[in-house]
C-alpha cells in the first residue's frame, strides 16, 4: 500500500497535467462566443472590404496538394501546397507589408514597400529587389498567398449569394470568428466546400479550410495561431540589406513570363463551354477559365519546359496515361499534360475541375490549334 499511493499520486498528476491544456482551451473557447446577426452576403462583403485593414500574426498552412513534379520553380510550389508552411505576417497597408516563411534553420522574407519588393533569404545571404511590385495576374503561388486573409478573400471574390451559408462562431487565435461556408454550384468542380472564418469585429479571415469532394479531411487548411489587429510599426516592415549580404535586382523571368514569351500560342476564348475568367483577362498566352473556386488554367508550354514536365510525370506514381496525355489528381487538383510527345504543341491544363472536364478541354484545344 505504501508503494501504491505514490504511484497513484503520480498518475493523478499526469492525468491533471495532460488534460489541463484541453480543459483550459475548451473553457477559453466557449467564453465570449456569441453569434451576431449577419447574413452570408453581408459577411462576404465585410471580408472583402477588410483588405485595407492592418493586422499581424503567426499562421500555419497545411496542404495535401503536392503534385509529383519538381525542378525549376515547381519544387517550391509542390512544397508549399503539399507541406506545412509557417508564416509570420505584419500587414500595414497594400503596399507596406512583410511575410516571413520560416523554417528550422532560416527564413525567406518578402517585404513590400512603396518603391518595390525585397525578398530576403537568410541561408543564401541573398536580398533580391523587385523594382516592379505589380504582380502578374497569373503566377505560381507564393507563401503569402496561403495567409488566411489573402486566400479567404481570393476564394470568396467570385462567390454568389446562393453558394454561401453562415456558420456558428468559434474562437480562433484568441478571437471570436464568424464562419462562412461556400459550396460551389458548378457541377464540374472538385471542391466540396470552403469554410472561411473571419474575425468578428474586423472581417479579416483568420482560418480557411478547403474540402475536396469525397474526402473527410481538408485538402488544405491555413489558420492563424497568433493574431492581432493592432497596426504593426513601420520599422517592422522596413528593410535594407544587411552588410555582407549579396544583393540582386530581379529580372522577373518566372515561369508565366517564359510561357507568355515562348509559348507560341493563344488560349481560346472558351474551353469545355467555360469562358475565360472576366477578372483575369490580360494574361496573354495563358487562359484562366471558370469562376471563383472552380477554375482551370490552360497554358501552352515551350518545348523545353514541356519535355521536362513530361519526363517527370512519366516516371511519377499515380500518373495515368491516355490518348489525351498524362493526367494526375491530387486532392481537388487535377492536372493534364496533353500529348503524346512530338505531336504538336503541348498544353498544361490544371485546376479544380474533374479529369473528364480537362480531357474535354484538351480535345477542344487540339481542334482549336488545328483550325488555327
Amino acid at each position, binding site marked *: 500500500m*505504501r508503494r501504491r499511493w505514490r504511484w497513484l499520486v503520480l498518475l493523478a498528476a499526469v492525468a491533471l497535467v495532460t488534460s489541463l491544456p484541453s480543459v483550459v482551451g475548451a473553457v477559453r473557447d466557449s467564453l465570449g462566443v456569441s453569434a451576431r446577426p449577419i447574413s452570408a452576403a453581408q459577411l462576404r462583403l465585410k471580408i472583402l472590404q477588410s483588405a485595407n485593414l492592418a493586422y499581424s500574426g503567426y499562421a500555419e498552412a497545411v496542404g495535401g496538394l503536392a503534385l509529383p513534379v519538381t525542378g525549376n520553380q515547381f519544387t517550391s510550389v509542390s512544397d508549399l501546397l503539399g507541406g506545412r508552411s509557417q508564416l509570420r505576417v505584419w500587414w500595414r497597408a497594400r503596399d507596406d507589408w512583410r511575410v516571413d516563411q520560416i523554417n528550422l534553420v*532560416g527564413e525567406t522574407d518578402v517585404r513590400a514597400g512603396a518603391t518595390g519588393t525585397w525578398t530576403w533569404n*537568410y541561408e543564401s545571404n541573398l536580398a533580391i529587389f523587385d523594382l516592379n511590385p505589380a504582380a502578374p495576374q497569373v503566377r505560381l503561388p507564393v507563401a503569402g498567398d496561403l495567409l488566411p486573409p489573402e486566400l479567404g478573400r481570393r476564394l470568396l471574390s467570385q462567390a454568389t449569394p446562393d453558394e454561401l451559408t453562415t456558420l456558428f462562431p468559434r474562437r480562433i487565435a484568441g478571437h471570436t470568428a464568424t464562419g462562412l461556408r461556400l459550396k460551389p454550384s458548378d457541377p464540374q468542380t472538385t471542391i466540396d466546400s470552403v469554410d472561411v472564418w473571419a474575425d468578428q469585429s474586423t472581417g479579416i479571415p483568420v482560418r480557411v479550410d478547403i474540402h475536396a469532394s469525397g474526402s473527410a479531411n481538408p485538402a488544405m487548411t491555413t489558420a492563424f495561431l497568433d493574431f492581432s489587429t493592432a497596426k504593426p510599426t513601420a520599422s517592422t516592415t522596413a528593410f535594407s540589406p544587411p552588410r555582407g549580404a549579396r544583393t540582386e535586382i530581379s529580372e522577373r523571368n518566372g515561369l508565366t513570363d517564359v510561357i507568355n514569351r515562348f509559348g507560341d500560342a493563344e488560349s481560346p476564348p472558351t474551353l469545355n463551354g467555360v469562358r475565360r475568367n472576366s477578372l483575369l483577362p490580360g494574361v496573354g498566352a495563358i487562359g484562366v477559365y471558370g469562376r471563383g473556386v472552380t477554375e482551370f488554367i490552360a497554358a501552352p508550354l515551350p518545348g523545353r519546359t514541356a519535355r521536362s514536365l513530361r519526363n517527370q510525370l512519366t516516371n511519377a506514381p499515380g500518373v495515368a496515361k491516355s490518348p489525351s496525355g498524362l493526367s494526375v489528381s491530387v486532392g481537388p487538383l487535377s492536372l493534364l499534360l496533353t500529348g503524346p510527345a512530338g505531336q504538336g504543341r503541348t498544353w498544361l491544363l490544371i485546376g479544380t475541375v474533374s479529369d473528364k472536364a480537362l480531357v474535354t478541354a484538351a480535345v477542344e484545344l487540339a481542334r482549336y490549334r488545328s483550325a488555327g
Partner: protein
Amino acid sequence: MIGVELSKLFRRPRTWLTLVLLDALPTVVAILLATTHLGPRPGQGPAFLSAVLTNGSLFAVAALAIVLPLFLPIAVAVVAGETVAGEAQSGTLRYLLIRPIGRTKLLVAKLISVFSFVMAAVVLVAGTGFVVGRLLLGHQPLSAAVSSVSGSQLTPAQIAFRTLLAVGYVGVSMLGVAAMALFLSTLTDSAQSATLGALAFLIGSSLLLTLDAATSLQPYLPTRYWLSFVDLFRDPMLLRNVERGIGLQAVYVAILLGAAWANFVTKDIKS
C-alpha cells in the same frame, strides 16, 4: 549531500573526458570551415553554419546546433543514466543509503548534480564555440553588428543577450533527457541500460517527428522544440515555440522525476 554529489561528479576523469569530446566536434568543424571556407548549401547543415564564415561570434550558437541533435543528449544520458544505477552496479548504493539521509534527499542531490552537468556542458560548448569562432572564423571586430535571421542588424549587446537566452534554452531542452535517464536509472542496476533506454526514447521521438501520420502527437514529443532556439535570432524574436519548448520540458521533468521518486523511495536495494 549536494556538495558531495557535485564533487564526485566533477572529480571523475570520465566527466571531463565527456566534456572534452563534446567540445571536440564543433572545434573540428570550425577548423574545417576556416581552412576550406566551404559553408553548407542553403537548407542543409546545422543552423548558423553559413553565417559563421562572415562573423565568428555566431559560432557559439552554431556549436550548440552542431551538438544538440545527437552528441549533447548522448552525453547527458550517459551521465544521468549512471546516477543511481551506476552506484548499484558498483555495489555502493547500499552503503550510500546506510548514511542517515533520506532517499528523497539523495535523489534530489543526484538530480542537482545531473542538472549542473547539463548546464556546464552547454555553457562549455557555447564558450568554446565563441573562442574558437573568434580565433578561426570571420574576423569582424567584436563591436560589429551581426545580421539576424530576418536580415536586420543586431548590436553586439543584442547578440550577447540572445546567445545567453539560447544557452539557457538548450540547457532546459536537455533536462527532459536527463530526467528520463534518471528515472530509468532507478529502475535498473545497469547504467548502460538506463542510458540506452533514454536514447531509445529520444530516437523514437526524432523518428515520429519525421512522420506526417504522427502530426497530432508531435507537439508532445520531447525533441519537438529543441531547435527553436533559432527563433531567438529572428527579428522580432519568435517566442511561441520557445515558450512551448520550456513548458513541455517542465512537464516531462515533473512527471519523470515524480516517477523516479515514486520508484526509488520504496525500492528494495539489493546491491
